[in-house]
């Protein structure tokens, strides 16, 4: 007679996808765009990337130890690494080292651990940190390095890069400029019109990512491929990315058709900066987005609307961070009102009426 004294309820078998596997797949999906970004902006970007990620992991370990929990399993779930990674992707590539450290601290400590750790936070940690940095250090956070790929003649070497990251950038203007969206915003204030502003705009270069911008977000194609792969792997659902992108595209088309001189085209919106990164990797964060398909559609549409509004009429050229945080705060409300219908009940939770036969 065999004896097994530990009772357990079903299901006794399970799917093979664990939390850390989910995190690693997201990291994998991010890696092409990341690798491209690191190459595109050279050693300073590599330093900043490594600093941000390792600070995130160290802050996580520190907080977990402070709470008196075992550190290793928490680090191994990969969530701190992913948060640091996502934050690094959204930073200006040549930002000084302390931007990475402060950002990681904001993301992990203020954005995640004070709420109680993984799964408890109201706001997306990476976006919270990015927005806090943008407001606190506007100069560092809007200094965009020129494209200067690794091992190219004009790119800074290792020693020079070390200097850029750890001692600050000298002779700023020689190496930096505005992002496309920033440039358009500035030129609008000079009363120039779109066809004139966009004389030098190259859709193809923006599509592959050969342009100024955040460390890992410039390449539309690599971000898009990573995101589509995540949907195919069933790590994320299609609802949020699709509703977000469609909302932006519809609004942009509408305004562009009405006044093509002052409203940029939907293609430029979708092909710029953080749009795909936000749609596939940031807005789809499990913890801070609604948990029903309908709720996710609403959430995505809300993000899209806010991004468009802030980009078009706001003071900042890029509105993704603010849009995500605003919609994060609406997530509990969306989940409260949008619920799946329970079998045998109507939407109000009352039992269905017996049909007459």
């Amino acid at each position, binding site marked *: 007679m*065999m004896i097994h004294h530990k009772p357990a*309820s*079903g299901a*006794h078998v399970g799917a093979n996808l*664990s939390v850390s596997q989910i995190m690693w797949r997201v990291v994998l999906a991010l890696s092409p765009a990341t690798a491209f970004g690191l190459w595109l902006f050279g050693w300073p970007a590599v330093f900043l990337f490594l600093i941000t990620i390792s600070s995130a992991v160290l802050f996580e370990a520190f907080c977990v130890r402070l709470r008196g929990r075992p550190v290793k*399993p928490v680090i191994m779930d990969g969530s701190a690494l992913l948060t640091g990674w996502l934050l690094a992707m959204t930073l200006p590539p040549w930002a000084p080292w302390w931007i990475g450290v402060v950002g990681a601290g904001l993301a992990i400590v203020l954005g995640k651990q004070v709420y109680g750790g993984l*799964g408890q936070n109201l706001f997306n940690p990476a976006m919270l940190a990015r927005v806090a940095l943008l407001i606190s250090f506007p100069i560092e956070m809007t200094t965009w390095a020129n494209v200067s790929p690794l091992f190219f003649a004009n790119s800074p070497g290792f020693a020079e890069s070390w200097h850029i990251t750890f001692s600050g950038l000298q002779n700023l203007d020689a190496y930096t400029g505005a992002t496309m969206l920033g440039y358009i915003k500035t030129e609008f204030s000079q009363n120039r019109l779109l066809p004139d502003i966009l004389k030098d705009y190259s859709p193809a270069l923006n599509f592959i990512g050969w342009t100024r911008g955040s460390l890992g977000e410039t390449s539309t194609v690599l971000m898009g491929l990573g995101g589509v792969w995540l949907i195919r792997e069933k790590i994320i659902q299609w609802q949020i990315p699709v509703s977000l992108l469609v909302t932006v595209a519809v609004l942009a088309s509408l305004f562009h058709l009405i006044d093509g001189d002052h409203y940029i085209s939907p293609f430029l919106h979708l092909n710029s900066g953080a749009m795909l990164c936000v749609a596939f990797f940031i807005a789809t964060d499990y913890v801070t987005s609604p948990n029903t398909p309908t709720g996710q559609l609403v959430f995505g549409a809300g993000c899209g609307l806010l991004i468009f509004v802030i980009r078009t009429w706001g003071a900042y050229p890029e509105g993704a961070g603010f849009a995500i945080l605003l919609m994060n705060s609406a997530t509990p409300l969306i989940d409260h009102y949008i*619920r799946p219908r329970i079998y*045998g009940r109507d939407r109000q939770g009352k039992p269905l009426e017996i049909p007459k036969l």
Partner: protein
Amino acid sequence: MLSWLKPQRIRGGVHADERKASTSTQAIVNRFPLPEKLYIPLQQHVGKPAEPLIRVGDTVLKGQLLAYSQGMISAPVHAPSSGVILDVNDYPAPHPSALPIRMIVLETDGKDQWVDTPEIDDPFQLSPEDISLRVGAAGIVGLGGATFPTAVKLNMGRENHIDTLIINGAECEPYLSCDDRQMQERSEQIIDGVRLMLHGMETHHAVVAIEDNKPQAFYAMAAAARLFPEIKVMQIPTRYPMGWDRQLIRYVTGREVPVGCRSSEIGVTIHNVGTAYATHKAIRHGQPLVSRVITVSGGAVGKPMNVEVPLGTLISELFAFCEVDAAQTARIVMGGPMMGDSLPHSGLPTVKATSGILALTQNELKSTDEQPCIRCASCVGVCPAGLRPLDMANNIRVNQLDAAVDIGLKDCISCGCCSYICPSNIPLVQYFKYASGEVAARQQAQHKSEQTKKLMEARQARLDRIAEQQRLEEEARIAAKKERDRLKAEQEAVV
């Protein structure tokens, strides 16, 4: 073209690794050696336990009535083989608790000798009521695992004038293949059972629904049913929990059973294929339900198989026959791996509900390394009942059971999809079972305290009444005394 606008017919569910091939490709084994002792619980069904009518020491034949059905919802129990009654006493139940319940212990004599079982030539001459009576007397209950007395369902079907009888051949649980094999090998008998059920319910339309991962069973059943236009055999998508009665009803008929209603109220009754087979045996051959086909499978089983065993056979004997490796066995499960119960040991009997016994190795089990919920909402996506398991679990974790009930705890069917899919290995079903039990216990406690309060109030009222009465009597006495004194004084004054 507008079909996607119609209400969806399948919701949620998971596609679990099937692992049926080791048992579904070989014939049902009929040569199980007769155990020396059979442990027959008096309660193998939903409802009241049966009441024994034999005494210790009685000699009984196979199929003889051992305990009779008690009350409206109950089922009798028959002797699975011939022999002597050794004991009627409490023995460990085939339940995760293994708490003792009343059982009849039968020592078999090896002859396996049947009582008289009258064959019936044309059962369709019997009245529908008679079919129900005979099915009830044969101790037949839902053999899919629900074990609701079949006769009661037949009666309800007849009274509600149902239009569709659904025969559940989904067998959506992984590992299990007993229904699959029965449909392949006993299709004629099952179809006959279906016709008898139709007759018993005075219904003219039956649908046999079989998941499309069982093509052999589908062909066999379709061939057996070709002469009977009233029986339609259809394939349904393979997706757990397709065999959940309400999901199947919605898929087959498009109707949804309202909460708190029985399916017969919307014109549908659902029975399992094994139940149809048992009905055939009971009506045609007069044989009560004394054995069943059980799938024995799992990584620790040397010879996985479907085997017909007498009810009351100990799992340990089944394991010995199927060469189960005790060292490899990490968990014994009765039923399928999604909804089945883990059993504390193998010294427990098989019952009418036992569709399978699994001996699972550690590798097959889901990890118990629990991590924080990351709100990935997989559980919301797979829930066939439309619940939000993560929110329910959060409420239960902080002991807000009423909040969990408000968002649908009582609509949970414990199908296990949420536990299956959870990447953080949170035992969600465990939470819900705990909470349901706790809610019931609290309601009971509240009821009890209300009753106590009522009694206290009644007692207080009684005491008050007595005190009041005493006070009145006292006053009357004082008044009488005063009167006497007055009269006395008057008399004295007169004198």
